[in-house]
């Protein structure tokens, strides 16, 4: 189980090897504080939705309607995000103010839907699903914080050609990080 967790966190990092959740990763990684807020919100939502979607998928299989799983997953995700937003606003307003703005954006973060798809295509059981969801969302948090901290330094010390500023350099950073993360392949405890 620890191997499984590590592989979803590092060697099969969901952002850097499977290239998921790129739009928010590029849009929100301009400073570490925002990146961390977004990352933590993603960890919570991904883990919750995977744990909820798994029994729903089993129910769909039982009734023979697993073709509609995409529709069911996306409704669950939208609902979880909405409920989480309402609950946080009411009971933990400080936390809501800290990453309330990122919550609605998560509905369109493909990491959330992808994790729910992977447990179907890869045939994980319930505990594997939970570990995989937690590990890969933590991996996404790691990736966005890494990119954000490099960009923060780059904004101060970097002297880039005009055309490379902004998005283009983020891709180059991501490429180098992806190469570095491929070094984790075959890691085991």
């Amino acid at each position, binding site marked *: 189980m620890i191997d499984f967790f590590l592989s979803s966190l590092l060697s099969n990092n969901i952002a*850097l*090897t*499977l*290239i*998921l*959740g*790129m*739009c928010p990763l*590029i*849009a929100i990684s*301009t400073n570490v504080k925002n990146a961390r807020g977004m990352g933590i919100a993603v960890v919570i939502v991904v883990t919750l939705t995977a744990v909820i979607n798994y029994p729903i998928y089993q129910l769909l299989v039982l009734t023979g309607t697993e*073709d*509609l799983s*995409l*529709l069911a997953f*996306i*409704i669950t995700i*939208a609902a979880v995000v909405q409920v989480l937003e309402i609950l946080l606003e009411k009971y933990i307003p400080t936390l809501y103010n800290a990453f309330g703005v990122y919550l*609605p954006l998560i*509905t*369109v*973060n*493909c990491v*959330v*839907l*992808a994790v729910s*798809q*992977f447990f179907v*295509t890869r045939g994980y059981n319930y505990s594997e699903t939970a570990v995989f969801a937690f590990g890969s969302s933590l991996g996404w948090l790691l990736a966005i914080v890494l990119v954000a901290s490099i960009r923060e330094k780059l*904004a101060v010390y970097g002297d880039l*050609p*005009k*055309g*490379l*500023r*902004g*998005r*283009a*350099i*983020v*891709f*180059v950073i*991501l*490429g*180098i990080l*992806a*190469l570095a993360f*491929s070094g984790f392949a075959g890691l085991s405890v």
Partner: protein
Amino acid sequence: MNLIRIRYTKWFNIIKNSMKSNNPVFVAALGLCSALAISNTIQNAIAMGLGVTFVTMFSSMFVSMFRNYIPSKLRIVTYMIIISTFTIFVQKFLQAYFPSIYDSLGAYVGLIITNCIVMGRSEAFAIKNPWRYSIIDGFFSGMGYTLVLVLVATIREPLAFGTLLGFQVLPDDFTAWASMGTASGGFFVLGLMIWILRSWAKTYEEA
């Protein structure tokens, strides 16, 4: 003469905006996940591009047809449901008629739902415009996306596998660049392409 008259019509502007000045990948940085993951072979790029075009076109059309009945608080969920209906359609179509492409695209077909291009066109264009404009806008946004995907794939496929559309183009003793087929190759190629295009079009961004 005709050409000049076309230039100033609304149709022409929609097409120009969605292909060039609003190109989803280069200018707005939308739909990147699949753009990077899928663009290692041209075949995948075309299949994915057409899938996204289809979904964007029809979900834009439906969103704008129902735009007067969608409550603004529930609009995101409504988009989601419309989009996922068409995505399931694409998924089943590929599974039935092109099983090999379906296998190599894997989970990314389902991820068309969360492709920001589809959602972005619904939110930015379809909700405010009549359906016949929305369908054109959706089609050309999808085509702009396909174009970029195919461009990136044209660079990556020969370098990663020595082939072009499945045909051997580079000599047999060419050492394939393994990293071109993986994530990092996609990042580098797209980054460099944006750099070249920005310098050429002189559209820079700050920071």
